[in-house]
């Protein structure tokens, strides 16, 4: 009896006919992104935490000092009203940053660079995903989706925020307020209120944008911190991921609270009264007294 073997002809590129792969992906003619894939991915992850996340914590701490400064500042030397003490504290914080922090402009430019790097790569990476929360409505999947949405909207907000308050694009500010560091609190209040008199609808819209922007960005940071711990292999077991999740939730909640309190504090502030305090604090005599304090 004759046995006949029938072997189907496999296509030349059938998977087990191909040798693996790494040689192809790291070939010198591969693109820049492919050659430095790992480095760029991890720098993207790291840049979200240092410097951007650290700055965000610091920024929210400074801004919310307009509220918690009421508790922290000593009996005011310049004004009797306790409600104004927070703004005094905030004024001093801003003054300290702008006069005592060395190479402020370099720090700022480095920060903008980091944000640009993080967001451009972020757009690029986000484009590799596809949303399927309709079918797989798990909490983790929603966070995955929100991480991308908050990235897109967050960068829009950051641009608006920096352009209007830092680069002076006042045509984007209802009421046309020009933010100034010497009158940081009163001008910020005017930006959020839509002018120097009462709160306008346009002002409320700006405040709402700030509320959403801060909320989304804090979520993006807290969730990104949580996923970064998985990406880098710090939290491995499901239990450790859950525990670190609680920690990130706590941090995020605290930061959101700081952000919301800041917005509320400046929204309800009376710009005229705050400006009086700032003018007093900024007078040559007050500055001299302050310098003597040190």
């Amino acid at each position: 009896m004759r046995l006949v073997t029938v072997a189907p002809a496999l296509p030349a590129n059938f998977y087990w006919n191909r040798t693996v792969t790494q040689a192809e992906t790291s070939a010198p003619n591969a693109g820049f992104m492919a050659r430095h894939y790992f480095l760029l991915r991890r720098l993207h992850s790291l840049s979200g935490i240092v410097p951007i996340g650290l700055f965000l914590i610091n920024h929210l701490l400074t801004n919310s000092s307009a509220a918690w400064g009421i508790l922290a500042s000593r009996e005011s030397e310049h004004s009797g009203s306790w409600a104004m003490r927070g703004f005094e504290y905030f004024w001093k914080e801003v003054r300290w940053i702008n006069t005592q922090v060395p190479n402020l402009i370099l720090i700022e430019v480095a920060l903008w660079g980091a944000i640009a790097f993080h967001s451009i790569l972020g757009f690029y990476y986000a484009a590799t995903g596809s949303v399927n929360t309709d079918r797989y409505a798990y909490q983790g999947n929603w966070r995955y989706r929100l991480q991308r949405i908050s990235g897109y909207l967050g960068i829009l907000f950051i641009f608006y925020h920096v352009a209007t308050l830092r680069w002076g694009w006042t045509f984007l500010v209802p009421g046309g307020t020009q933010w100034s560091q010497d009158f940081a609190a009163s001008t910020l209040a005017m930006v959020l209120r839509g002018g120097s008199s009462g709160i306008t609808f346009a002002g409320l819209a700006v405040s709402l944008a700030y509320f959403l922007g801060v909320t989304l960005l804090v979520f993006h940071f807290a969730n990104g911190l949580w996923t970064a711990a998985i990406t880098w292999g710090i939290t491995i077991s499901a239990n450790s991921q859950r525990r670190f999740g609680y920690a990130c939730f706590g941090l995020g909640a605290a930061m959101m609270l700081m952000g919301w309190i800041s917005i509320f504090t400046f929204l309800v502030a009376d710009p005229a009264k705050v400006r009086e305090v700032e003018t007093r604090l900024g007078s040559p005599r007050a500055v001299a007294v302050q310098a003597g304090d040190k």
Partner: protein
Amino acid sequence: MTATAQTPRRTATPDRTVTFRIKRCDGPGKPSYWQDFRVKVPKNSNVISCLQQIAAEPVTAGGERVTPVVWDSGCLEEVCGACTMVINGKVRQSCSCLIDDYAPADGDVITLEPMSKFPVVRDLWVDRSRLFHNLARIKAWVPIDGTYDLGAGPKETPASQATHYVLSTCMSCGCCLEACPQFNLEEDRDQWDSSFIGAHAISQARLFNAHPTGSELKPDRLDVLMGEGGVNDCGNAQNCVQVCPKHIPLTESIASIGRQVTLHAISKFFRG
């Protein structure tokens, strides 16, 4: 952690008719279309047994005689992964999908679709070659080929056996890939090596890296996993671990490989 979300077991109406709404496709590149089939289901039916009934009598709900619906299956006991499809919108094995759970009442509807992340061969049958190709990318094997008898391998401790046994139960079904938002349909084979490798392969890399002999290939595996389409492409949606029918701790594997890749990169930086 639950695997595929299942409706709680209710008492099923005996002798009921269930409608199967099936997404069909006549061949690669052909358009998809839906057809309804009404099946009288006996007690303890599963999706495959109903598909067999449809194959025996391929008449649609509208009374039209059509070509039988094609599907893939093997073991019929949820260990081979061949019968994986999207049932009522979620991916799972069809052989272990009990009709009494999914359609307990007369007139209930069950939708069947082929997986969307693999090219359709026909109807519910997809080509999972890329899944196996990705296992080859990370050399998911223990190298024992040689010109002489290599003798007995190193010992495994019971403790490491216990942690790694569950990883070895992967049946290459593709559920984790179907549910993953970072794993997309890619029909161009030339793109496979730079596209996301998937949770199953990452988990197998962890398994074989932990194997005393398999660890010989660890640097090769980590080189691939730190590159384009490697573990960094995971977006941590963690759908994979939710849908894996074998309850493999895929997200732990992803984190573990994340750590291995981090250390590998550091050691490469200093040792060249």
